[in-house]
């Protein structure tokens, strides 16, 4: 895609229509990829014509968790690791809302890992955007469940020796109806992937590989933010991970795009069908009390 067509398709989208001006300037570090992911999300929301009043964004704790505050929507910045659980309650109670979760690799895969696998299994209509920067940025750059092998962090001074998660493989194995991955370098592709996730009738898991330049990049001598983003481009797989060791958890190759899509029944609709059956059974029992209640 040329630069011209990218600009053309973006023309009618003004990100400022979806941001809270009173929250600017934002607090992300220079070179952080999270802003790119946020822009792609809002672009997807715009192209789908989702009403801001009906948009609910739930986020956890960490750099990614802070993004909800910038979005001009119904936004909920909740406890560490729990945004999927909060969002489950919100989406079940209010099926008229469009519920999006923004989370990070630590929030989603470490402290919130149980909620992720069960959200995938339950398949409630939700879109989970996990921004994977391989590090706990907010707390000063500690190792995370997705930190590549041998990467230096503030708690792995000689290099990470723990194997890292392949989040998309995990989500797929847990039964997520929609699984996809994209890098921040390919903004239109990222936007299209998020759009497909938002349109999916069940649970959609979208992993965004994004760069933490200030803390992770600097500790690992990965160059400037531009160099880190360009490294994503040099291959179909993000080259930031190319020199890592193959593990059962994550292979060297991190494919991008839509990785899994199934049409399993959506939980909310399935629940409401079951609830209607209970209600009609209760009505029958009430009409015929001698046979009904025990």
């Amino acid at each position, binding site marked *: 895609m040329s630069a011209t067509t990218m600009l053309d398709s973006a023309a009618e989208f003004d990100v400022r229509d979806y941001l*809270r001006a*009173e*929250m600017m300037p934002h607090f992300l570090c220079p070179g952080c990829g999270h802003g790119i992911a946020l822009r792609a999300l809002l672009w997807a929301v715009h192209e789908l014509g989702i009403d*801001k*009043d*009906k948009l*609910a964004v*739930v986020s956890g704790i960490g750099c990614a968790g802070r993004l*909800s*505050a910038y979005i*001009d*929507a*119904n*936004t*909920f*910045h*909740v*406890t560490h690791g*729990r945004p999927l*659980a*909060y*969002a*489950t*309650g*919100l*989406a*079940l*109670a*209010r099926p*008229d*809302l469009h519920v999006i979760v923004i989370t990070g690799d630590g929030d989603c895969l470490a402290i919130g890992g*149980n*909620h992720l*696998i*069960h959200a995938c299994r339950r398949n409630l209509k939700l879109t989970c955007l996990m921004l994977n920067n391989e590090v706990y940025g907010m707390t000063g750059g500690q190792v995370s469940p997705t930190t590549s092998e041998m990467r230096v962090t503030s708690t792995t001074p000689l290099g990470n020796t723990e194997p890292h998660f392949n989040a998309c493989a995990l989500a797929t194995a847990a039964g997520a109806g929609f699984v996809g991955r994209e890098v921040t370098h390919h903004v239109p592709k990222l936007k299209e992937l998020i759009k497909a996730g938002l349109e999916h009738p069940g649970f959609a898991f979208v992993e965004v590989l994004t760069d933490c330049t200030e803390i992770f990049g600097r500790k690992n001598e990965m160059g400037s933010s531009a160099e880190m983003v360009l490294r994503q481009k040099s291959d179909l797989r993000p080259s930031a991970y190319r020199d890592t060791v193959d593990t059962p958890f994550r292979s060297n190759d991190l494919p991008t795009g839509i990785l899994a899509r199934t049409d399993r029944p959506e939980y909310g609709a399935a*629940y409401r069908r*079951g*609830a*209607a059956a*209970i*209600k009609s059974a*209760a009505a029958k029992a009430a009409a015929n009390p001698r046979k009904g209640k025990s």
Partner: protein
Amino acid sequence: MNAVDTVLAPKAAMRLLSGNHACALGAIAAGCRFFAGYPITPSSEIAERLSRGLPEVDGVFVQMEDEIASIAAVIGASMGGVKSMTATSGPGFSLKQENLGYAAGAEIPCVIVNVMRGGPSTGMPTRPAQGDIMQARWGSHGDYPIIALAPASVREIYTETIRAFNLAETLRTPVVVLYDQVIAQLTETVELGDVQNVSGVAGGERKWASGPREAYQPYAADQDGIPAMSRPGAGYRVHTTGLNHAENGFPTQHPEVVDRNLGRLLTKFDRHRDAIDSWQALGCEDAEVVIVTIGISARAAMRAIEMCRLRGLRVGLFRPITLWPFPEQALRKATAKARAVLVPEMNTGQLSLEVERVLGGRKVDAIHRFNGEPITPAEIAERAESLVKSSNAAGPAGEAK
């Protein structure tokens, strides 16, 4: 309706119920339309009843993956504008504490039922205890306001569950309903007819934002100290966070703004104590010994008082129904003329610690039990009798020390 049905109609409200079943019915009567829970003894019957009861009234029941997810989903549903509840026991109550603090800080109404069992840790899952009194008040980190209600009968579980919702909604706060395993699984005949009389605060409904978006500040309170909440979809598009926040809902660490907003939060119950406070004082007017206790221990104390009075011993009962904030003035008044105060409780001294604090230096006697066996009426009566006799030996009656 035929003649027979007409005659029987008033009795139709009589039900044979267990405490946990009454809790489920009370929740539905109060307008609860969302429940998220996780199986745990001895509270699971509440979830089981609501899994069938909520769909019948177009509500939602969901069994979540763990205790933390349960309270998170409950707060999420309440943020969506739906009256919501979870139920658990000690281990689950411990796990819920961080998010309970979130609900207190962000002022999200919700009801948390904690059926107390033996502790610490896994403890005695099928045996009663009253060991979560202090956790109900101080369980989450930092300073925050909380309401905890302590019913002592099946009927009271029903009415206090309704009152819990009314207080939670009108005061924008989490409310804990705290009762022990015995009354949870006790089965009694109860009448559920006069629900209207148990509304804690007028209406029992949340105050919703109205007026133009530009003029709305999500945490700017009215004279009553309670900010109006905005319903998602109503056009206000506000931010809710567990970070300390300003009136506009956005995070702040500005000392003056934190002082003002957190200060308002921490004192917001002060002007609503008439609606919050609730207690039962039985025979305290002439009592030489006042027994202070809750739950199943209060049921035993009521019998003990009858036994004492038959023997000519003037013994009374003060039972906090609202446990937190503690009904301090009422306790001071009820014990003003008493020569001794006795606290029987199924823990090692949580309620007696609070009673000592409220009564400022007065000696407080206690019976502490933590082996899973309820304290018997005879034990309480015996101790009360010895307190009456020893206080008589110490000097003439009627002079409080």
